[in-house]
């Protein structure tokens, strides 16, 4: 059956992953309230990474864009009420994640997932902070601090989650492991 660039599968998965990103934001489960002007978005970018890894750059790009749009519409601080900060960098999260995944997939599946998560998170963090500085919401020094204090834990969490999610979903693993209980 002929289908366009966006198959039914890609449409639905993109929609569902975007919904997760929105739910994480809407219920505030994806946020750390933070005493600097930087704010939030700790795991809300993970759906974009997962989308890029599982279904390719188009889906990853769409999920990232919808995440960014939602972030913009919902924002109550000046920094995120700026489309160049909230939307623009997020478009690339899923795309860079997919590129990283595709690059490392031949080496090792788990490694590829971890690298994808790292790259996707960096895209988000560096992208947003760069735009924030360029637009004058943050001094460069502050941006560096925020980047390191938020960025590093975010990368770790994103990597762990991405692996856990993809592994759980794809039943990648058949056979047995060794439960530590």
């Amino acid at each position, binding site marked *: *059956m*002929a*289908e*366009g*660039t*966006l198959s*039914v*599968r890609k*449409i*639905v*998965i*993109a*929609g*569902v*992953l*975007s*919904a*997760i990103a*929105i*739910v994480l934001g*809407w*219920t*505030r*489960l994806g*946020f*750390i*309230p933070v*005493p*600097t*002007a930087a704010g939030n978005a*700790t*795991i809300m970018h*993970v759906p974009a990474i*997962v989308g890029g890894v599982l279904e390719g750059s188009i889906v990853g790009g*769409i999920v990232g864009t*919808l995440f960014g749009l939602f972030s*913009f*519409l*919902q924002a*109550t*601080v*000046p920094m995120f*009420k*700026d*489309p*160049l900060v909230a939307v623009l960098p997020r478009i690339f999260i899923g795309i860079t994640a997919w590129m990283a995944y595709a690059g490392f997939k031949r080496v090792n599946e788990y490694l590829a997932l971890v690298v994808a998560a790292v790259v996707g998170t960096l895209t988000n963090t560096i992208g947003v902070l760069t735009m924030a500085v360029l637009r*004058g*919401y943050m*001094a*460069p020094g*502050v941006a560096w601090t925020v980047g390191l204090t938020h960025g590093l*834990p975010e990368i*770790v*969490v994103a990597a*762990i*989650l991405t692996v*856990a*999610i993809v592994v*759980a*979903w794809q039943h990648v693993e058949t056979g047995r492991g060794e439960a530590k209980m």
Partner: protein
Amino acid sequence: MEDFELLRYVTVGQYLPGDSVVHRLDPRTKLSVFLFLTLAATFSLSYAANAILVLLTLGLVLLAGIPLRYILSGLRPAVPFIVVLAVLQLLFYGDAYTPYGTETQDLLRWGWIHVTNGSVQLVVVSMLRFVVLLFLTSLLTNTTTLTGLTHGVEAMLRPFGRLGLPAHELSLVATVALRFVPLLAEQLEIILKAQASRGASIAHQGKLRFVTTARQVAVLIVPLFVDAFRRAEDLILAMQARCYVGGQGRSSYVRLHFARADYVAYASGLLFAAAMLALRNRFPI
């Protein structure tokens, strides 16, 4: 005490029923004007331009019958951040920002503190722009249903279908996302409760106290994603069973109609934004 009611935290951006001129405009018009004015606001750097925009958007908000108190109440939790940002910008960003139209003038220097006319402008313009964008967002989302917006987006993208853009497919992504948000929110609440019932401690008070270990996050997030994917697989089958083959050859149940007000609004929005952008460097202050 824990509070599991996630639906409580609904914020700005909900449809407020009404019958104003703005409500009755076609979603495409509102989307387009939103886009135009957002562009104008994003790239306007002068006091004058931003002041004009604030007045304009304020007028539109009042015209639409949106109570200002509603918009402001959504801001309340964010006020500390806004204030902190403003203070930081004012006191410390003197170096980074050259003011619009004139030279940098030091107003105050003391240690790290460096207030210039540039940093003053930065603060004021940031705040004004923030208000403008807040009003614009409210104008869009408070006067249009989300389904209306997706239909509007699809209709606007449809002409690009000839260039290969999958317009309906993209709007369907948005529709699916909107459809699943309440379902996944409910599911998340169930997962929270189920995990809490077996001993996970997930304190959830107002602002969620974010649990700092990835494992604790995984307890909630992994089941959520698994559930979401399961639903996705079902929906894919259902859509295939209903013969969805993409946007080509589809008819449309919802029909959008332009009225005279739409043409007027569209044209004025376009002209205004074009003027603001073209003249952005010509404002006196």
